[in-house]
């Protein structure tokens, strides 16, 4: 049946009077399209604006369909009658056309007399922007949300009225909140009345959103100007002085030159070229070329040239200074009317204070997380160095060993969560064994010879580091965190902290608790403390100091291994990662005070906060931050050579 009809239509199509005749040429939407027919047909991005605006603003229900199908390249124009139709290509030569006003199927026609409108991507973008208003009232919530996203990305003045219309309508509270906020933002940018804009600006006082600052910043834009006397007026943002903050003397003079208030100056390069092009018989304006090897001589020669009229006269240093002293420099608001600009400046100041507060909060969080990392790296060292008095330069390599254990486990166990859970005890076991082996083989021969312990453990350190390089290569190996540690906890646009850092912080707290528990509540801890305080007395009480030393050293090394897994999650695993932490770890222990876990905690906090604080002062340069931090620590040790919490009594003399 359909096929017969189709065939009929094809056969009869050319014979029938043009189906376009059946179109409603007087439908309001068609009339509107006809009004802009020429520019629509021209399809040029520069001229198409009014047509799209007229359609979007027409308030006609059909406008949305027209815009959508135009955007989809489904609108054609009948070259004969000049009427617009929707059309679908049936095959190469045949079109099925529909009425623009009613969408009514007008049958199939040959495409000879029809031209397709082919809006380019620029025009399609403009149509999309115009369509947003229709999408905002779309029943589908995802469409509405997408429309809001589009407005946020690329707001236009025309969106304001749409948003205001939508504001009062129904919708989920989330949607309405977004609409309301966006409406205020657009009011700031596009509203006609200053009072409206100021009210909107004031409504954002203290808001931390980046979008608010983005909306306000253009309003307080200023232009530097120069004049003989300070002008009056509300649009003057403030006076600037040459050669002080914000305006160099050179820039100020350029302002004067641009404003036609002073003659230009000449650069050394331009002066040289001018002189070179005026060399005659080995002299410039009668001055020997050979003598022009100083700036003064060149200035004289140029002056002489200017007097002959060969070059333009330029200002001398004295004239420049006089001109600078003669004029005032000021900034003028150009982004908005003065009242709005002042309100924006006020709001920005208010927001700035709040931003600064939140930044310091964020900085404090960063400091805490860095402190936890240092604490983790240093806690094992605090045990071996602090409790036993043994310098272990290979501590960093134990951290590395733990991290590589984690890496190897991840090669075997593909599930990230499970592999981390396995890696932590395994890393402890591996480094515990390495620590015990090192204590038995090397360190126990060197008690009471701390400097030589330092050297011997350093030998172990370079051997282990090179060994890791030989086994795992020089490139960084990844230690991937489980998925639930990805992302970060976002408090607002400024304060956020990644879950990995929180996990490291929690781990640090756990270690502290574990250390306190072991040292204060277990038999082992009691014996360790006894051996630390007086090995001979402890031995005569039946404690085996050799065994205790071995276990303590193993315990400290094992903790370094776990710290390695944690640090590996946060940074890359390389054979040199231990060396990166060893000096900071020693600093942490020394600053905190040897032999006291609270001291180590304080030391880590101080070192972490200090480093973040210095980085904040000079954010572009973490190297400088580390340099200054180390310098600070060196000075700190001058005043508290035994750390924040020094050992007291007899133990201090060991």
């Amino acid at each position, binding site marked *: 049946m359909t096929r017969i009809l189709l065939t009929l239509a094809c056969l009869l199509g050319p014979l029938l009077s043009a189906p376009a005749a059946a179109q409603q040429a007087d439908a309001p939407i068609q009339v509107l399209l006809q009004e802009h027919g020429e520019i629509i047909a021209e399809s040029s991005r520069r001229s198409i604006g009014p047509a799209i605006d007229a359609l979007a603003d027409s308030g006609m229900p059909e406008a949305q369909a027209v815009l959508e199908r135009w955007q989809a390249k489904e609108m054609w124009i009948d070259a004969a009658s000049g009427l617009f139709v929707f059309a679908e290509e049936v095959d190469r030569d045949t079109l099925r056309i529909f009425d623009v006003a009613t969408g009514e199927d007008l049958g199939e026609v040959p495409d000879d007399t029809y031209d397709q409108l082919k809006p380019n991507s620029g025009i399609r973008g403009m149509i999309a922007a115009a369509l947003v208003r229709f999408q905002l009232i779309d029943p589908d919530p995802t469409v509405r949300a997408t429309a809001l996203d589009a407005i946020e990305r690329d707001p236009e003045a025309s969106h304001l009225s749409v948003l205001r219309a939508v504001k009062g309508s129904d919708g989920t509270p989330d949607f309405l909140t977004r609409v309301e906020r966006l409406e205020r933002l657009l009011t700031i940018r596009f509203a006609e009345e200053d009072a409206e804009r100021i009210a909107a600006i004031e409504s954002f006082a203290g808001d931390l959103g980046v979008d608010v600052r983005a909306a306000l910043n253009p309003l307080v834009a200023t232009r530097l100007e120069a004049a003989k006397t300070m002008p009056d007026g509300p649009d003057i943002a403030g006076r600037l002085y040459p050669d002080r903050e914000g305006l160099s003397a050179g820039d100020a003079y350029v302002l004067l030159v641009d404003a036609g208030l002073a003659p230009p100056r000449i650069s050394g390069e331009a002066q040289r070229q001018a002189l070179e092009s005026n060399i005659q018989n080995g002299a410039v304006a009668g001055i020997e070329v050979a003598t022009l*090897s100083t700036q003064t001589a060149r200035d004289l020669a140029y002056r002489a040239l200017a007097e002959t009229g060969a070059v333009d006269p330029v200002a001398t240093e004295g004239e420049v200074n006089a001109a600078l002293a003669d004029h005032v420099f000021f900034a003028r608001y150009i982004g908005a009317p003065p009242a709005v600009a002042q309100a924006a400046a006020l709001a920005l100041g208010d927001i700035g204070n709040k931003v600064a507060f939140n930044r310091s909060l964020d900085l404090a969080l960063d400091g805490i997380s860095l402190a936890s990392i240092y604490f983790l790296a240093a806690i094992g060292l605090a045990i071996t160095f602090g409790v036993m008095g043994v310098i272990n330069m290979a501590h960093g390599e134990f951290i590395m060993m733990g991290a590589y254990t984690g890496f190897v486990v991840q090669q075997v166990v593909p599930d990230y969560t499970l592999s981390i859970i396995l890696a932590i005890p395994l890393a402890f076991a591996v480094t515990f064994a390495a620590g015990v082996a090192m204590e038995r083989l090397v360190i126990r021969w060197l008690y009471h010879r701390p400097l030589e312990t330092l050297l011997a453990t350093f030998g172990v350190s*370079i051997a282990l580091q090179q060994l890791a390089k030989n086994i795992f290569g020089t490139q960084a190996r990844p230690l991937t965190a489980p998925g639930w540690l990805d992302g970060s906890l976002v408090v607002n646009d400024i304060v956020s902290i990644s879950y990995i850092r929180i996990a490291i912080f929690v781990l640090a707290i756990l270690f502290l608790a574990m250390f306190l528990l072991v040292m204060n509540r277990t038999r082992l801890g009691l014996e360790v403390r006894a051996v630390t305080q007086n090995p001979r007395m402890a031995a005569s009480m039946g404690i085996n100091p050799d065994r205790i030393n071995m276990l303590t050293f193993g315990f400290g090394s094992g903790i370094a291994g776990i710290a390695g897994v944690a640090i590996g999650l946060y940074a890359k695993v390389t054979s040199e990662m231990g060396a990166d932490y060893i000096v900071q770890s020693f600093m942490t222990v020394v600053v905190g005070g040897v032999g006291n876990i609270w001291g180590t905690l304080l030391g880590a906090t101080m070192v972490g906060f200090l480093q973040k604080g210095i980085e904040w002062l000079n954010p572009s340069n973490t190297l400088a931050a580390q340099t200054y931090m180390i310098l600070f620590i060196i000075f700190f040790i001058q005043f508290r050579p035994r750390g924040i919490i020094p050992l007291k009594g007899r133990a201090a003399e060991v």
Partner: protein
Amino acid sequence: MAETTLSTQRAGRKPRFLLADNASVLIFMGLLALFTLGVTVLSEGFGIGVISTSFVKTLGKTLCLCLVALAMDLVWGYCGILSLGHMAFFGLGGYAIGMWLMYARTEIIVTESLAAAALPPTPQEISDGIAAQIFGVVGASEFPPIWAFAHSLPLQLAAVVLVPGLLALVFGWLAFRSRVTGVYLSILTQAMTLALSLYLFQNDSGLRGNNGLSGLQNLPGLGDVPQSTVSLWFFWASALALGLGYLLCVRVVSGKFGSVIRAIRDDESRARFLGYPVEGYKLFIFTLTAILAGIAGALYYPQAGIINPAEIAPIASIYLAVWVAIGGRGRLYGAVIGAAFVSLLSTWFTGGQAPDVSLGFYTIQWVDWWTVLLGLSFVAVTLFAPKGIGGLFDLIADRRHQDRHGADLGPEPGALREKESQV
């Protein structure tokens, strides 16, 4: 000299000459002179050409390393201060001379290129041109303030001595004054070294960041002299510096002064209670050795041709301690032997010349495994041969002291012994 003479006279002994007290000094000086002569005769520049110019440079650099090892031995082996910062002083000396070398050579290049211009260049243009040449690589075009004296050889030569010396003086004064000793001092000096190298790694440090200073092997104004000749000049200078440095160190460690610093090493508190200004002695030794290290560095880097902050990294200073420990600390020739032996061996192993060892299932490539071997042998030396290679000479001379009990803790006869230290 007068003080020594006085004190020995007071003790009722005949005054003796420095060399007569130390037979080893004569032997050392003789060997050094023979070695210098031998290398000269065998070199390409002045001799029959058996030794290549690059190897002459390696030998010259090794002599400089021996000099800094000598300084390390003085401060550590004799005074008991395990400084992990002497390679930083060494590097500072290198930077100081490198600044002049680079400035003067660039000045010649820039002046030549500007001479072609129609107008004679102004001093400002020359200076701008040099700055652009030197600092273009770090995106700057102006001289940082620390280059204020780079144009003057005498001033930069003074800086070779003054910069490491002043740094050591200030650092040592701060550290010794607050009684930072032992491992704490080692860690503190290591921190200083790390801070310095991190600072130099920055592009805005004024010393070209991690690019360092390069082209130092070309002496300004002597472009026509072939490298084979220049390398020998530096070789002689290094040998001379080592010889003079050795004499200076011998002078310092002999006599009363030497006894006092050894006393400080063995028991600082006891020395202090005996009334010696321990801090002053330590500060003097620390600063003196820093200056020696700076001079060694100033001779080393023109032969190496390039200096960058990696050379100052803490690891370098630790290697210095390794050399001295392996050579045998507490005896000056031990430091020289250690530095020469280990650094030449390192060059040989890491240069890829050492034959690989095939184990059937695995081939040991020394480029990879040399550091492991070095680390482990270092542990072994510390544990089993605290006197290092120098200890072998004791076996030959059979200079064992039977007067005290327990094994030696230090390599020096009379050092604190194990049994006594536990009291």
